[in-house]
């Protein structure tokens, strides 16, 4: 039996919605098959008022062991570092976050707001938001760089806007069934199982990427979304084309460029006008190249791909 507590800071509930849509395993499976005891969750918890405060205080005091503390949303520090803009159960939420993180065996941040600060932390960041251990790409989060939960792990970051349902439930199960220590984390503390490969892995437009056939509008069936529409699939770590959304599809499969929502630069770096859904180029070469490829390599690669292109690559594949 593992006790799980889920709280929300500066959040839109997107990750909760996502979590409730999980299927492999589902939120119910967590309880029935994996022995997870959901102490409280904003959409599922029944306790209110004094009862809720008692429940939380019991966790903080150690009367109720807290195995997994899940946090969704940013840590709100406004105004002036007090956190008063986001009060919960009688005090600023950030105080609960500090106290509960201190006693939890594992701390899991779900979604971009909890991991990097997300959209709320985008300049000018009026809510003074932070992620649990990161602020964008840097270790500038609320709990501090050195934070380790009782299991000795830093915050386990499951980014995404929102995170995919199955990334959430599968990691929770891994942690609850005692495999938490085996979760390999990358330098941004994301589980490697999900975040070592790129969004591009498994994208059905890969052939169009290789042979440089560009889609010029959303929803087009033919063409890669990288050359014109700013798809961030080649530099975004996510399994969106391996673990499909609603078990059916992904952004790129349906003709929508990947926005890079599992990377701290989401949404589109500084959101400067003209940079959204547009591939920025310098002398005809995309400014952001696929991860690990430099300009010279990219040109050479293109030449080689073109030279090797089979005749059918130039034909229209989708003749309705």
């Amino acid at each position, binding site marked *: 039996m593992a006790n799980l507590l889920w709280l929300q800071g500066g959040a839109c509930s997107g990750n909760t919605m996502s979590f409730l849509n999980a299927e492999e395993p589902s939120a119910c499976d967590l309880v029935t098959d994996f022995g997870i005891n959901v102490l409280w969750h904003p959409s599922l918890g029944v306790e209110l008022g004094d009862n809720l405060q008692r429940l939380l205080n019991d966790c903080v005091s150690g009367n109720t062991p807290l195995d997994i503390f899940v946090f969704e949303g940013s840590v709100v520090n406004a105004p002036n570092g007090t956190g008063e803009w986001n009060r919960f159960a009688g005090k600023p939420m950030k105080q609960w976050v500090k106290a509960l993180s201190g006693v939890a065996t594992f701390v899991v941040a779900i979604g971009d707001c909890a991991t990097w600060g997300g959209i709320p932390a985008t300049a000018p960041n009026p809510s003074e938001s932070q992620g649990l251990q990161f602020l964008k790409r840097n270790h500038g989060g609320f709990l501090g760089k050195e934070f380790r939960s009782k299991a000795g792990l830093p915050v386990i970051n499951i980014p995404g806007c929102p995170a995919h349902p199955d990334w959430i439930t599968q990691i929770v199960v891994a942690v609850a069934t005692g495999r938490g220590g085996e979760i390999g984390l990358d330098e941004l503390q994301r589980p490697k199982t999900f975040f070592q490969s790129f969004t591009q892995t498994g994208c059905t437009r890969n052939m169009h990427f290789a042979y*440089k056939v*560009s889609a010029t509008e959303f929803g087009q069936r033919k063409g890669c979304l990288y*050359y014109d529409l700013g798809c961030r699939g080649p530099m975004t770590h996510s399994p969106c084309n391996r673990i499909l959304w609603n078990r059916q599809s992904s952004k790129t499969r349906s003709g929508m460029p990947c926005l890079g929502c599992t990377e701290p630069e989401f949404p589109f770096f500084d959101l400067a006008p*003209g940079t959204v859904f*547009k*591939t*920025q*180029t*310098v*002398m*005809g*070469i*995309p400014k952001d190249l696929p991860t690990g490829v430099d*300009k*010279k390599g*990219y*040109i050479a690669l*293109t*030449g080689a791909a*073109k*030279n090797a*292109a089979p*005749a059918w690559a*130039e034909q229209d594949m989708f003749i309705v």
Partner: protein
Amino acid sequence: MRPEEEDRLLGKIAHLLESGLKTQVEPFPETHIEFAKILDELRALPQEDLRAKLVIGGFTNTPYGPDQMRCLECMYYLVHRKWCDLPELAVPVEPDWWCRLWRI
């Protein structure tokens, strides 16, 4: 086999470039707005004005710049047809040529 007509057109373009046709290789369009402006100029041309197409496109019959950019690498180049598939150009080209609408 490529249609003979395309071969003839390729020969004609090659001849124009060899005989020193001055084309507008600069400025290279840095942003998609500048790129679209050149495309607009091309769209405004009468269909049969091949020479003007080459001038505004900025064609050269050699690779260009420090990176030796060529049609071969350009995303509009169709290898098997030796063809520039950019709708506003749509002409046969050699892999070692270049124009300022080059993009990869």
